[in-house]
């Protein structure tokens, strides 16, 4: 299992989701993507994108304006 780190800080909606989507496209089932972002819209958009594509948000931590998501890659049915 590999953990990938994606830095989407200072990028605005929908770029954090696009960065996540691009990383997951090249990841394997079971891999984890750690996504860092600062756009408040990500709080809604990242979990929504994961639900739509059936990936799992393992955790979501916020500190001031920084958000860190850990996402497990599932099979894209």
């Amino acid at each position, binding site marked *: 299992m590999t953990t990938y780190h994606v830095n989407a800080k200072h990028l*605005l*909606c*929908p*770029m954090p*989701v*696009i960065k996540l*989507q691009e990383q997951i496209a090249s990841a394997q089932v079971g891999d984890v993507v750690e996504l860092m972002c600062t756009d408040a*819209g990500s709080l809604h958009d990242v979990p*929504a994108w994961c639900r739509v594509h059936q990936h799992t948000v393992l955790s979501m931590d916020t500190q001031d304006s920084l958000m860190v998501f850990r996402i497990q890659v599932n099979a894209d049915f």
Partner: protein
Amino acid sequence: MSSSQKKAVALISGGLDSMLAARCMQEQNIHVEGLNFYTGFCVEGHTHAIRKKDQKKSKRNNALWVAEQVGFKLHIIDVIEEYKSVLLNPSHGYGANMNPCLDCKSFMVKKAVQWMQQNDFDFIITGEVIGQRPMSQRKDTMPVIAQESGANDLLLRPLCALNLPPTLPEREGWVSRDHLYGFNGRSRKPQIALAAQYGFEEYAQPAGGCCFLTDASYSSKLTDLWANRGVRDYEIDDIMLLKVGRHIRPTKHYKLIIAREEGEANFLSGYKKQFTHLFTTSHPGPLVLVDGELHEEDLQQAARIVARFSQGRDADSVDVRIANCPNRADGDYAVAPLAAQDIPQDWYI
């Protein structure tokens, strides 16, 4: 999804029409996945996220929200670089502002054709309605989009299909024409009725469309940028900064981007390392970026304008710092704020 099930890729804007078109196909047992293209000019949650006064507004991405409500996968595609040629050289020209709607729609359908071929899908759907938009959604321009994009009769518009010749999916019986619609015109009543029939109680209704290029104020800032740089081109930061702040151009070689409130100041502060910037030190005031070049003879003028937009506007003297100016150390200037009447109206872009 069964192996015989036909697959449609839907262009999803996040508005009601594409939402209905996608559901209409699902009702006919078509597997639907959505595409949403990010050009850099999309009116979305990011603009709400910048301004503090808008922070109570929903910051959701409407296309994603639609995908979740209707139940299909959404692929968001970054087309910022490719889109430049559409905006800079539209073969069908612009609409009322800098909106190249017809070329834009052909471009997006063409991208959908590529995606359809790469992902083994069968046809493309959009939420277009004849007469809904003055440029791209007319009976005479819809065939142009189908032809120029290369989609031809693989492009199905479920909401107005009955007003158009049958497409391949209809002729082949993949979808039943009897269950498509004949909407036309600007009235939203048929869409609202269909939304109710599908049980959609909530949907986005963006006033003035979902693109900054349809906005007169934004378009004038964009044309000003090109005119004063002497080149019709842009980077993503250029077009993001046109969405923020008060823009004042005293001369051809520089303009000031003045934060109007805390949210904009926070956003502009992310550009401080890239831009010469000014701020008041004796009174509370805005962060101001300089787009262009400040010459020696401009320093006083720029500082006086910044002082004008600070809380020291009525003071005899305001201290202004000019920072990150190329080939010049950061400096403090004590200046008299410009009076409102000393800023000509044509400086405001």
